[in-house]
């Protein structure tokens, strides 16, 4: 009980980062630019960096110093690009450098010893289940006529659109689902996830992807199943027979 109640500051920050990036496509308000959850997270990240400078910035500083020639090379490349293309690219380069700094901070957070591999796998499992659950819920609510989701396109399987727009960009959703479902498959493969929750996960995800009509996601889910779950198993021979006409 004590273990459960003990709040870890860096673990909590990692949780916030994951949550903010899950909802990053969602625009909260338009203040000249689109205000996103990550912008609200930034002050908290600054406080954490001030409280634990050694933990968060130390490891990223090591990375930075080790890769110093690379960064210098990039800076030298940036100067002629700015001179040649003009101030338009300055904004772009500033954005890239800001994101690189943010990535170094993320590295400091996620590399910390308090964040275990199991918690990262659990993050992958629950976030994908959450995304798929929201999509399925939206589909049922729209089928009942209670709720009208923002949709991409028309003329889908049931003459419905793609209800992925709740999270902003369907492309992001596809990235998240493909990469983190691969982690969940691996977690199942090494025997850390039980059969029931794995097949519940797979069923929900396939239903959501079928509703979303994301062809690339479906393809990658099946390819990953073949490559990771069915590795060195006899069922592999029957896999393609099942899906081909």
């Amino acid at each position, binding site marked *: 009980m004590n273990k459960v109640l003990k709040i870890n500051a860096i673990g909590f920050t990692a949780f916030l980062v994951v949550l903010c*990036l899950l909802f990053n496509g969602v625009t909260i308000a338009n203040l000249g630019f689109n205000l996103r959850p990550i912008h609200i997270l930034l002050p908290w990240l600054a406080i954490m960096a001030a409280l634990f400078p050694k933990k968060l910035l130390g490891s990223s500083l090591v990375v930075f110093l080790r890769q110093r020639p690379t960064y210098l090379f990039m800076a030298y490349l940036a100067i002629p690009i700015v001179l*040649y293309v003009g101030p*338009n690219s300055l904004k*772009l380069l500033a*954005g890239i450098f800001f994101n690189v700094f*943010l990535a170094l901070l*993320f590295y400091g957070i996620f590399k910390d010893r308090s964040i275990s591999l199991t918690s*990262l796998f659990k993050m992958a499992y629950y976030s994908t289940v959450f995304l798929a659950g929201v999509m399925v819920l939206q589909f049922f609510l729209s089928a009942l006529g209670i709720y009208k989701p923002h949709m991409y396109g028309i003329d889908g399987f049931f003459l419905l659109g793609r209800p992925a727009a709740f999270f902003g960009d369907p492309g992001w959703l596809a*990235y998240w689902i493909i990469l983190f479902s691969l982690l969940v498959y691996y977690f199942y493969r090494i025997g850390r996830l039980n059969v029931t929750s794995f097949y519940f996960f797979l069923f929900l995800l396939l239903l959501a992807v079928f509703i979303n009509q994301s*062809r690339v996601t479906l393809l990658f889910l099946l390819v990953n199943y073949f490559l990771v779950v069915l590795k060195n198993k006899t069922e592999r021979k029957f896999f393609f027979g099942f899906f081909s006409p």
Partner: protein
Amino acid sequence: MGLVLVVLLYLGVISLPRNLYYDIINFDANPRIYDARLILEEYVKSGRLWFGNGLGSLSRLSDIYPWRTYTDAHNVFPLQILNDTGIVGLALLSFVIFLLYRKLKTGIMKLMYIEFVVLLMFHNIFPYFQLFWFLIVLIFTIDRKNAETSR
């Protein structure tokens, strides 16, 4: 299962979704193919094969060259890079991708990294968005932690 779907399609019970229609029946209507053809044509016509036509995203390039008629999709990253930085830039980029691949230790993260790169080629979020940097960091941290525990 596939046979049942084909028979149902033939009988007209179910209809193909529009974005599957792109892939199977009218291949030229696919915006990615359209963009790819346009970019490749312009690249060959410009004659700057080694160093390309200048850096920038598709929207910025369409500001500079208003006669271009790209669709909204930013989906053909290799050809964009080829047009903007030429053969030298494409070779440098693939070298950087290979260097990062070499630093990974466990097989599962290598697979995830390859899939990540393949996805980036067809829906470009590099490197203007935080999700790219978050995922690349997560791939490396999980790889290191996995290598520690499995050793």
